[in-house]
């Protein structure tokens, strides 16, 4: 039984203090090492054993008390049902790569949800004013307008009408 260290992060950050735009404040990250009879959480030793069935974790025994859980993993993300609630975790990126990911799209507007581009209301190079609707996303019968955060000029517009867009990807760039 290996006891490798994994650095994992709670998706969405601490409940009361969500992850900030720059990706620093509110992050809930822990260093966890799971051994055969104990686990180490951020340096704290916890007598713990893990029960696995069919590739999923179904119980965690801490100090002799077995608590039911249920995990499902998809690549570097893992979903955990525990105590009647569901959490999502992922392998934590190094702070530097996270900062890069955030800064890379500093001028870009990210899609707040997955969806289809229903309408493109501007073209690259157009002058826009703050609050102006740039494009409209639609998902599950709900429309969502993406507005310009400031006066400026439209830089790149990577999607066309009808395109499928994932959540959190840049959908428009506004240049100063």
């Amino acid at each position, binding site marked *: 039984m*290996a006891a*490798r260290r*994994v650095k*994992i992060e*709670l998706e969405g950050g*601490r*409940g*009361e203090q969500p992850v900030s735009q720059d990706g620093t404040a509110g992050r*809930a990250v*822990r260093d*966890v*090492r*799971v051994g055969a009879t104990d*686990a180490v*959480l951020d340096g704290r030793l*916890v007598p*713990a054993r*893990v029960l*696995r069935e069919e*590739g*999923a*974790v179904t119980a*965690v025994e*801490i100090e002799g008390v077995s*608590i039911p*859980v*249920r*995990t*499902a*993993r*998809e*690549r*570097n993300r*893992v*979903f*955990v*049902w*525990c*105590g*009647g*609630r*569901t*959490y*999502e*975790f992922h*392998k934590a990126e190094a702070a530097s790569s996270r900062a890069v990911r955030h800064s890379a799209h500093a001028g870009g507007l990210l899609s*707040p*949800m*997955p*969806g*289809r581009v229903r309408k493109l209301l501007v073209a690259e190079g157009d002058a826009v004013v703050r609050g102006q609707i740039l494009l409209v996303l*639609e*998902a*599950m*019968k*709900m429309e*969502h307008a993406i507005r310009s955060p400031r006066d400026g000029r439209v830089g790149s517009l990577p999607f066309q009408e009808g395109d*499928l867009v994932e*959540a959190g990807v840049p959908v428009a760039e506004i240049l100063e």
Partner: protein
Amino acid sequence: MSPLPKRILIANRGEIAVRIARTAREMGIDPVGVFASGDSGAFHRRAMSQSLDLGPGPAYLDSGRILEAARAAGADAIHPGYGFLSENAAFARAVTAAGLLWIGPSPDSIEKMGGKLAARARMREAGVPVVPGSDGSPGEADSGAELARRAAQMGFPVLVKASSGGGGKGMVRVDRIEDLAEALSETRRVAEAAFGGGRVYFEKLFERPRHVEVQVFGDSLGHIVHLFERDCSVQRRHQKVVEETPSPALDDRLREAMGRAAVEAARAVEYVGAGTVEFLLDERGSFHFLEMNTRLQVEHPITEETLGIELVRAQIEIAAGAALPRAWQDGSLSPRGHAIELRLYAEDPFEFLPRTGRILAWEEPSGPGIRVDAGVGTGSVVGVDYDPLLAKLVVSASSREAAIARARRAVSEWIVLGVETNGRLLAAVLDSAAFQSGKYATDLIASLDRPREGEPPDAAWIAAASALEAPEPASETGTGTSRGPEDPWQVRSGWRPGA
């Protein structure tokens, strides 16, 4: 009564298609399904004895292809479910013209209730109280003085609406008389763009109304009854999230008055089949007709649970010419206990933004007082092209308090991994003092404090780390991501993004 149909084509998807198929099977009727090519992995196909490919695009709205599928499958009836073509009078006519049994109200009834303004006028004539407002007559918007007089009479705020609109589209709130004319113009512009025009009007806006609806049922012999109410005040983005019956806001006098008004409303359009009359209940306890849904309602199960009846079975029997069951007519039906429906949506629980992905694990709550009508299962892919409703949890118990406790237990028990759901919102509603007191209005969700949540317990961190450090199981790789448009048959996962 004509014989029952032998094979029903269910022109829908998701939980309602599954639910209708179950009743069909119980009646000895063969349920046949359809699916859009881009939706070939859809869960509802499993409930059918067979299903047919409608081809690419928004196929569930394509009446021609659906009728073609019905012919190919040898179906003798069509059940439209809710949404899609269920309130499309032209489709209802085409179904009948094709010699098939239409399981729904007559196209005339659908049309008479389809336009909001016409329905309002008809209800006023029938003596049913409607929400105070303008009548949307063609010259109305030009007569500034007359509009101002009416608005002043009922008091601000008012809500400007398009007669042909729906889902909150084009609705504008107006707080001051000075803004009314502009709002009417704006809604007219939106209506032209979205619904091809139609009239525009305004209604009094109640700040904290309850949304209470009454289930009605008519037969082709002219009988019309009501089957008590459902309280649908717990909403987000003008869509229902939690419904309950009986409504904690009604006393027997009000219940009877609303039931009578609902029957009058249905009688005014010679209604046959299952329908729902929606009312706003204002803070002073007066009720006002809002609209009539001429189809099976999403939240119909709570009525089934408290009354011990089966609405889809009745729809089919009555479409075949049967009379309403005697117990529905002789006043012997009465609600027993309390029922609550909770809608599980694929969306952020507090921002209400859609969420997509593959459901990696799906385990429904069960046991006493629990009914789940689901439209997905483990492995289902939730995409962007359809309604975010994953399943309905229907909870029954002998009292409202016990039903709330049971619902809370069931929400905790539900394991849904891989796609974020509004499960935490459902828990927060059930935990709220407002919901528990029964004294809440349509602003309940908007006024909820986002629950304070500590960090996950140690067990969750340890489980997560253990799952992440193990080698990834082969069966969980490479699925859940978008694929190109290759043939879904014979590939590893049948799903591809909707075409």
